[in-house]
């Protein structure tokens, strides 16, 4: 594998609330290679968005990055000064968010908001920035680019705004695009358009994408490599086909089974009992133990270490600790 663009090691982001500590992200390590799409998938409160925000040091009070390192081309983002991090944001690393309607400023035209990033990070004048903006809008597949440059956010639909957000994010040709649930607020037909666009951009420009989502269907459409998070930790990670073919962690298997899939109707949906534990009162042992069907005695004693097999499929579950050979017997029936 090539040198990764960004490497995260033992990232810890904690929230301090009313004297309690919520471990939103705990001991998360991963890296993003060039030109690949890495998906982080998980339910609300699993720490996927906080991980994304941590990469650009955008976590707000009362959150704090408590430990670890984030290496971008071997430089630790966590040790950069304000100016350095400012230069990085929107230039080498850019981000798009879930709600395109609230990410844009309603009182400025689209054109002004696109030019802003270019003026900030490149040596160009207003006119050049404007022309570049028109090109970007065309690139993300919006018709009548000049007219869109002069419109205000409320005049565009959600799908169009998300394209505009992507255009802004692409304006400085970033090496890494962080996309936090970019299609969740959109309708399925529009979601399909945006996913196609992102795939196309990755192929054209060799940009890496860190894609955050809760939807395993979307993961299957876009990811090269998948990271599954639960209660602030990575519980499983693997290349996309491997993960869908042989999901191992009981949580991943449960998630895959609990989603109704068109054309594979069952009489009853599988459901994972209970709910996500409170992040400030995490149990000793595996965080998923209370909801797990295969929970054993030792699961409640210590948090399982992540074990990797030869193919790079990593699972943090005691079922797989004794070596992968006998692990495959428990993963049979998905």
């Amino acid at each position, binding site marked *: 594998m090539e040198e990764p663009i960004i490497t995260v090691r033992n990232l810890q982001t904690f929230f301090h609330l009313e004297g309690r500590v919520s471990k939103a992200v705990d001991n998360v390590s991963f890296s993003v290679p060039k030109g690949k799409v890495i998906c982080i998938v998980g339910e609300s409160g699993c720490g996927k968005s906080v991980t994304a925000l941590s990469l650009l040091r955008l976590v707000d009070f009362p959150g704090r990055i408590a430990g670890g390192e984030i290496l971008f081309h071997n430089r630790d983002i966590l040790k950069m000064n304000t100016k350095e991090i400012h230069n990085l944001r929107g230039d080498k690393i850019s981000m798009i968010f879930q709600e395109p309607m609230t990410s844009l400023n309603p009182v400025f035209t689209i054109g002004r908001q696109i030019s802003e990033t270019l003026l900030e990070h490149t040596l160009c004048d207003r006119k050049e920035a404007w022309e570049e903006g028109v090109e970007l809008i065309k690139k993300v597949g919006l018709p009548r680019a000049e007219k869109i440059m002069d419109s205000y956010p409320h005049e565009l639909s959600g799908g169009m705004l998300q394209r505009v957000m992507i255009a802004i994010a692409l304006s400085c040709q970033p090496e890494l695009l962080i996309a936090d649930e970019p299609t969740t607020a959109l309708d399925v037909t529009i979601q399909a358009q945006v996913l196609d666009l992102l795939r196309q951009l990755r192929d054209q420009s060799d940009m890496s994408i860190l894609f955050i989502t809760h939807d395993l269907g979307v993961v299957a459409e876009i990811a090269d490599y998948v990271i599954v998070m639960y209660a602030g930790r990575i519980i499983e990670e693997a290349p996309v086909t491997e993960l869908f073919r042989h999901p191992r962690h009981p949580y991943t298997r449960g998630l895959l089974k609990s989603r109704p899939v068109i054309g594979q109707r069952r009489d009853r949906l599988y*459901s994972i009992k209970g709910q996500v534990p409170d992040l400030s009162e995490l149990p000793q042992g595996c965080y998923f133990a209370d909801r797990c069907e295969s929970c054993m005695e030792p699961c409640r004693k210590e948090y399982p270490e992540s074990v990797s097999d030869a193919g790079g499929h990593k699972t943090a579950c005691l079922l797989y600790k004794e070596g992968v050979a006998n692990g495959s017997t428990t993963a049979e029936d998905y």
Partner: protein
Amino acid sequence: MDRPLLKITDLKKYFPVKGGLFGRPVGWVRAVDGVSFEIFRGEAFGLVGESGSGKTTLGQTVLRMHGRTSGQVMFDGLDIHSLPPKEFHKTHTRMQYIFQDPYSSLNPRIRIGDAIAEPLLAHRLATRADVREQVESILAQCGMAARFMDRYPHEFSGGQRQRIVIARAIALNPEFIVADEPVSSLDVSIQAQIINLFSDLQEERKLTYLFISHDLGIVEHLCSRIAIMYLGSVVELATRSELFLNPIHPYTKALLSAVPIPDPERKRSRIVLNGDVPSPENPPSGCRFHTRCPFAKDICREKVPEFRKVEDHHQVACHLF
């Protein structure tokens, strides 16, 4: 499944667009524009559409939460929109509505036990003496323990709140429930729990559902007949197997092909629709889908397609078929 419980005939609901100095209507948003279908007793009927298709307005107009513009809603022989207020009040015990957002549909200052007791007392289906007992049994049916009765909504998670909202809706023992995107704000693992609760309640109580959703996977799981809505009108209506195996309308096909499938190895030919849903204030002429339809012909731009039967349980509004 012989006699329809609910019969909607050419229902229309327009909202005025106000403008000018005196706030006179300057145009109309045709949220629901001529919808007709029937729902039979004991079935779960799915209504699918993207945002802005009018599915929520239709659901609310069926329960007379809005007045209609024209058309008729017949519920078990009662013309819902022509009932005098007193008679209409009585129908509340028979038809209930479940909203999308469980966070805003419970009053934060009312204990959940009281929230469920309120409709029972208002309709004199319980007395002060036995109401707690009844609430307990309703909560139990929705998978909630009796000890939660004296707690406030903020103490519950989204999934639990949706259970409470469902408990309140079934408290009056209704026959018909309109559920508007009841699981779309929940996490996947919680969605499955709530969907199973819907199936269980349907079986135990012989409920009839109008299930509104944008999620075709969930609708396929739960509903036996499904209508697809686009810009205020139904474009296709069929039984579950017909619709998913043999979709006819280009919009239905596009919608089905756009749903992401959790299998990275499956390659599909996808119909990607261009553009966005047009504004219902100024809908396209002829077939409303023609601006995005990859197969549109001249006739589609001129003439509104008739909603007709192609097979026994399959209706479609398209010139091409």
